[in-house]
């Protein structure tokens, strides 16, 4: 038996290649660090299925209106988008969202889903309120010339949205919060009137300025804004 055991022990001469031993040692610890994506593995399939579901959900939610189940998803998508865009692009996104809210109101009216109308108008006012806040923030720390330029650039888009709103809401005979419904136009008109007040104006500009002030005092803020913008155009041509 001893001889057999000695023969067995001779097998101890079998050794792995030393290079293989050392490279395998490294590979064992590396394996977890090197990420490999197997598309057909269960976790990968689950991730793919979840992503597909979320994509379909987000896509379907884009046509949802206030009061619909998927409207929350639509709002969440917009919120994440808003959080991701740089500060200077937030105004543009606000205009886009304001138009979207108006389209929702229009769609609800077309479908005669009157029970959803107040919700839709509330959503619209919410975007407009944010537009006003964003305008105030964007000009807050800017030099006067730059702030005026921002206000003039924003004004046409604000007027377009508020005109569209008036047309749509007015046709329904619905009473909205008038202060809020023209709040951004009011803010812009006030800002530009203040600017021209401190400048020397031509005779023609002075007439337009006086007209704008009168319209503002009469709470015709959009008219006041349009008039102020005319002053700007004449001065720029000169």
């Amino acid at each position, binding site marked *: *038996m001893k001889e*057999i*055991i*000695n*023969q*067995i*022990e*001779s*097998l*101890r*001469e*079998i*050794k*792995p*290649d030393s290079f*293989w*031993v050392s490279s*395998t*040692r490294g*590979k*064992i*610890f590396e*394996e*977890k660090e090197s990420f490999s994506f197997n598309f057909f593995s269960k976790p990968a399939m689950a991730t793919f299925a979840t992503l597909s579901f979320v994509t379909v959900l987000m896509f379907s939610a884009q046509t949802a209106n206030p009061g619909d189940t998927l409207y929350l998803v639509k709002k969440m998508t917009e919120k994440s988008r808003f959080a991701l865009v740089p500060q200077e692009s937030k105004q543009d996104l606000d205009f886009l969202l304001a138009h979207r809210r108006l389209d929702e109101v229009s769609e609800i009216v077309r479908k005669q889903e009157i029970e959803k109308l107040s919700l839709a108008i509330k959503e619209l006012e919410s975007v407009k309120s944010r537009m006003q806040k964003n305008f105030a923030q964007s000009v807050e720390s800017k030099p006067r010339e730059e702030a005026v330029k921002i206000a003039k650039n924003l004004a046409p888009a604000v007027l377009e949205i508020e005109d569209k709103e008036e047309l749509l809401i007015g046709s329904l005979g619905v009473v909205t919060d008038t202060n809020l419904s023209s709040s951004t136009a009011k803010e812009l008109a006030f800002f530009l009137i203040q600017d021209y007040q401190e400048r020397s104006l031509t005779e023609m500009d002075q007439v337009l300025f006086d007209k704008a002030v009168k319209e503002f005092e009469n709470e015709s803020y959009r008219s006041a804004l349009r008039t102020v913008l005319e002053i700007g155009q004449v001065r720029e041509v000169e």
Partner: protein
Amino acid sequence: MNEAQKRFGQIYDDNIDKVYRFVFLKVNSKEVAEDLTAEAFTKTWKVFEKKFNQKKSLENPEAFCYRTARNLVIDHYRRQGRRQTVPVESVTLASNENLEKKVAVTSDMEMVMKAIKNINSDYQDIIIWHYLDELSVSEVAEIMGKSEGATRVMVHRALESLKNVLEA
């Protein structure tokens, strides 16, 4: 290198030769032995690391690694559907012994390897673990999932079986 890697590194260093040898003797191919041994250690490391992160420890990682290697060998033969003969030329001799001794050792090795191939698979494992790798009966029992008493009997029968083959 973190603490878990350090500890497992030591286990690897202490056991890589033995596990490789066990697998090599079972599959008779350097390449297959390398692949299966690497896989056995990788699987053991994953379990070891998982337990370590959970502030637990893998009891007897050596036995776990042997068991994993053994299962991989079984899977390998299931896939192959056959057993191979022993190509003793592919064996790497560790020492720088002189040619005469080398021939003698190779001859002994060849004989015993062929004999081992001709005994029951469980007996092969027992011979390798107990007589070659010097695992105690209780350690072999743990790897095989058998009682110590039953393993002791099997150790005895395995050696008898090998002796019969060598003397035949």
